[in-house]
């Protein structure tokens, strides 16, 4: 009996000390291994995400653009949902989605893009917000094991596919019209329009709305091949817009054949690479498809320049502003990331975060978080 007790004690002693030694060593080991680097990147991304949510999300789930008239836009709601889903903040995710669904959801399932002072001030939709929200719902459904969120995401995805895109391509025109064709989308294509308000005639598009990862997620969730068509078409249009050595514009128009032309904003102004288009390299750099990443790499010579990176550029890459914005740095980081330079990506993301800390904005905070999440972590899903 005594002997048995001694053996049990010995085993206990060994187990306790061995476990303690292992745990303490693993915690205190200062060596920076690949897994440690990944963990650090993840914790930085989570911290940035939390900072954005803390700064701009109300307890009721509204994301308030405090530096832009304190309004609420569907884009901000979608960003908050993406960030919350990525960092695993289910409570905040549900709050934001509930508020969004209660206050912005339109009868057709899309989201009205603006809300102020207790009411929707513009019922039209913005496709980027809808797309990001749908992706966030699908990711959240998976992450939080919540089929009802996935179902909401699928419904929103269907609404986007039904109401926020246009058929384009040479296949939509008689053969004789194509001679000679210089630009266009060969065969039948489908493009995500800027919103529900521009699906006929030359459609208004915002290349910064194209998101191959979101489209891939929604294709997987819905099995709706229209998402594959959109991804392919967006890539062709993306190349049209940048192939001649220019930057993608914030806004463009696409004709029935799929030929895209850079334009200024609908409200007027010159065609520029600004805070809208800066999202395009980020979204393409996070893609799992090397074809998409090639597009991001192609923008590197113009976007990743030494010295200060201006917030606004002319399409030939020349500065159009003397001020900076974190999202421009994140765009540069994205091109570097697509090119396989992990250290360079970190450096630029850190610069973006420092700039955001110095001059905090809603949009900057959102993209500092999303940039880290999309480019350096698998928080929104593995490739």
């Amino acid at each position, binding site marked *: 009996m005594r002997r048995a007790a001694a053996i049990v004690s010995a085993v206990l002693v060994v*187990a306790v000390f061995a476990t303690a030694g*292992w745990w303490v060593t693993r915690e205190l080991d200062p060596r920076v291994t690949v897994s440690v680097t990944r963990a650090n990147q993840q914790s930085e991304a989570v911290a940035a995400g939390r900072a954005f949510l803390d700064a701009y999300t109300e307890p009721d789930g509204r994301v308030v653009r405090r530096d832009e008239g304190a309004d609420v836009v569907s884009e901000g709601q979608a960003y908050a949902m993406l960030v919350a889903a990525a960092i695993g903040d289910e409570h905040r995710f549900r709050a934001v989605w509930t508020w969004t669904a209660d206050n912005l959801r339109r009868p057709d399932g899309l989201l009205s893009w603006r809300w102020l002072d207790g009411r929707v001030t513009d019922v039209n939709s913005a496709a980027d917000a809808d797309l990001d929200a749908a992706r966030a719902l699908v990711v959240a459904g998976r992450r939080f094991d919540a089929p009802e969120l996935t179902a909401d995401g699928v419904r929103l995805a269907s609404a986007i596919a039904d109401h926020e895109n246009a058929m384009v391509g040479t296949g939509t025109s008689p053969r004789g019209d194509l001679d000679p*064709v210089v630009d266009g989308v*060969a065969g039948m294509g489908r493009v995500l329009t800027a919103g529900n308000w521009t699906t006929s005639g030359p459609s208004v598009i915002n290349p910064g709305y194209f998101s191959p990862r979101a489209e891939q997620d929604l294709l997987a969730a819905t099995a709706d091949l229209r998402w594959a068509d959109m991804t*392919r078409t967006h890539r062709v249009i993306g190349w049209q817009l940048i192939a001649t050595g220019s930057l993608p514009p914030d806004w463009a128009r696409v004709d029935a054949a799929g030929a895209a032309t850079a334009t200024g904003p609908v409200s007027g102004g010159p065609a520029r690479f600004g805070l809208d288009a800066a999202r395009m390299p980020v979204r393409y750099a996070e893609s799992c498809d*090397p074809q998409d990443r090639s597009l991001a790499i192609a923008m590197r010579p113009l976007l990743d320049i030494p010295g200060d990176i201006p917030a606004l550029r002319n399409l030939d890459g020349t500065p159009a502003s003397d001020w900076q914005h974190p999202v421009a740095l994140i765009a540069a980081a994205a091109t570097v990331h697509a090119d396989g330079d*992990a250290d360079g990506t970190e450096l630029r993301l850190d610069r973006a975060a420092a700039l955001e800390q110095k001059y905090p904005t809603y949009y900057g905070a959102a993209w500092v978080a999303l940039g880290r999440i999309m480019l350096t972590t698998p928080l929104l899903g593995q490739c």
Partner: protein
Amino acid sequence: MNRLARLGPGVPVLGLLLALTAIVRAVNLNGSPARIDDEGTYVAQAFAITQWGELAHYTYWYDHPPFGWMQLALWSLVVGPSTAGNAVASARLLMVAVAVVIAALIWLLARRVGMTRWSSALAVGLFALSPLSVTLGRTVYLDNLAVAWVLGAAVLLCSPKRQLAAVFGAATCFGVAVLSKETMLLFAPMFAWLVWTRSVPATRRYALAVFGAVFGVMLTTYLLMATVRGELVPGPGHVSLWEGVKFQLWGRDAGGGLGDAYSLKRHTIDQWLMFDPVVTLLAAPVAAAGLLVDRLRPFAIGLMVVVVMVIRPGYLPVPLVISAIPLVAVIGAGLIEVAVHALLEWGIASSALRWLRGPALGAAALAVSITLALWWPTYRGLTGADDDAPMRMAQEWIAANVPRSDRLIVDDALWVDLVRDGRDRRNVVWAYKLDTDTQVQSLAPAGWRDYDWVISTSSMRANVPAHGVLADAVEHSRPAARFGSGGLRVELLRIDKNATETRTVSPAAPGYGDVLAARLAGSASPDALGILQSPTVDQRVVAALAVLAAAEPVVLEDIPAVDGEYGVGTPRRELVVSVPGSRQRALAAFFGSQTGAFATESVAMRNDALIIRFPLRTKQIGLAVPAPSADGGPASIRVSDLRHGRTGRQEWLNLVRIDGTAAGSVPIVAGAAPSSYRSVPPGVYVVTTNAIGHAPTIRQVLSVESGTSYTLALFSGPDGSEMAAQLAPDSAAAPAPGAGTVRLIEAADGAGPADVWMTALDTGTRTTLATNVGYGLVTGYAALPAGIYSATVRAKGREWSQQIRVNDGQATTLLLMDGPAGPLLHPLVDGATEAPPLDPSALSLPDHADPVVMPASASAVSDSGGSARVALASAFLAVIGALAFAGGIALRRRRRS
């Protein structure tokens, strides 16, 4: 009693430990760490011995004594140079065997200095399992070989019989160790101490003298070798042992101090700490503590010398720590034994043994768990990572895509494999030698321009000098392919030699793929259409696809990127089309028979698909710049066949619009009379030619502008190729009133270089049209007053003249051809007024043809699975051997007892 049998019950334990030593090294032997430059250098030097009887693959400059790689050479003669997949991997197998020998020697040494079996086993276990030991023990370092000899010497000196023969053997072993790696000389004090303390007191001086003499004789062989080669001391035009020693002792970069976080020395130590902080951090305290224990003192002195070498200012080689690991293991285990023994004695004496058990057990568990926790991250990489994959893939890519005639700047890790692959050793140049070896520099008088590729690896990137041939080569290169990422990436950098003859392959400009994709829509995979519309497709793929689409109903399946070429700017140069089975062989033959710019690298048939790959290197074919405007009236074109030795076989020249529609054909008529002008819409065309009933050959891309007349002159190719076509616009600027314009097309090959001039018969004014022109030249137009001229051709010292009329306002081409009595000028009136359209297209692919099918890719490199199998087999054999050894001894003991 047999000596081995006297090892007693420890034999099975030793067998297991030896097996463990082999297994942890052999598993994933070639996956981690990735091959490095140093390994390649030693293997290449061994290769030079076996292949050419030379001491090194470049000038041997006494950087290290050569006995280390002589052992590697012997090994390669036994197992072959690439048994495990590549040359370095084969040498790594030897490292596994050497590690097993070292482990056995550690056991013997520990036992001979009086350590118990369990502490001896602990020493062997520490050596066997330390990730630092495993990582560096897998790597082909001379230190691994040298350490085995050092331990052999120590074991002999610790022989219980204390015979003079042991001293003799030990001195020999130590001499071999130093001749394998000169840093082993650091252990001289240790051996002096050992000889002194392990000899019988009466013969100490004698033993020391014998040891010194034998060791001295061993070293003298090295001096003798240098003397015989006339390289003992510096002199003009040769290297010397003295300079080699001077470089190793004082010539290397100091490497910075320990306190400098960015110094090379600190980086080296951080690397050791990353692999194994336990052994690295324990080395100094273990050495200090070992000095206090009599039987461990000689080894502690040896270890302390190494520690001092690490701490002192100066260069610190990465593998220096290899020599310290066995000593840390032996001394560390010995100290633990001493501590446990002391504790036991104290416990027994003070009757506290009972109460000591718990804390002792806890402390042991804590120490083991801390050690394992610190080792775990390294083990994950050692057992699971395939860090060598980028090197392997790069090697395969080189074999498939880099012509053997190209000159490569390489990391030495690839040197032997590339040379064994059939490349001239002068075309595979170790990067380090570019700026340091005058012999290498003499082979490349134009510096970086004499090279075609840089194979950039981690160690090369870390050692690119600020200036010199390597720096220039890297600066003037751009990646053609990239494998891996981060520090492990291997980049295949193609050197752009100059701007005029660029070897940079541009993709087809935007627009060409668009029009072709629009034409193919409906009979192509949508994804492939998307790719075709991106500016990532090789010009040859677009042109060839246009021809194919014009000739056959094929389905474009894909335009894939070749592995490694994604994201580095190399255009997609592979084409996958779906072809009915009955047409596959004919189409394969069509592509396989292409020559010149459209020659294929490989054509493969897979199920219903045909996979066509063009070679990496090419010249621009005319699709790199955007198409000119296709608006306006038609252009006109005539064809003049000026090739040598044309037979009477009827041929057609076919024009295919870049959108994949057949525009029409022109019959090719040999001789001075060109075809009539034919009207063609402005645009971009792919030109093919074919004889009736034969497969067409894709020739080139033409761009014709609205309202312009052209002469398409077909010459024989200068490089033996069948045809080189030149499209010359015929519409020169309108001459002044009363004048005409004249140009020359040189198609007379027999006359040799010629001068051609026109002399006005009325004024005697002489106008030179061309000087020293050869076959294949088309000059620009010269304006001449209208009238009659004497046109003179001078070639080979002779002159021929004939009268030529220059008409007012007219452009004339003088076609210089070989005539029966010398060169003859044929005047042609240029410019079309009205031109009939092209004939209906004669482009068709043959119904049947003998296929010319090449493999989809050639690989000179065995797959990693093969090397892994060899490694596992080696480990298995080592295990079996160790167990058999242990079993045999145990059996023998049992019989004797």
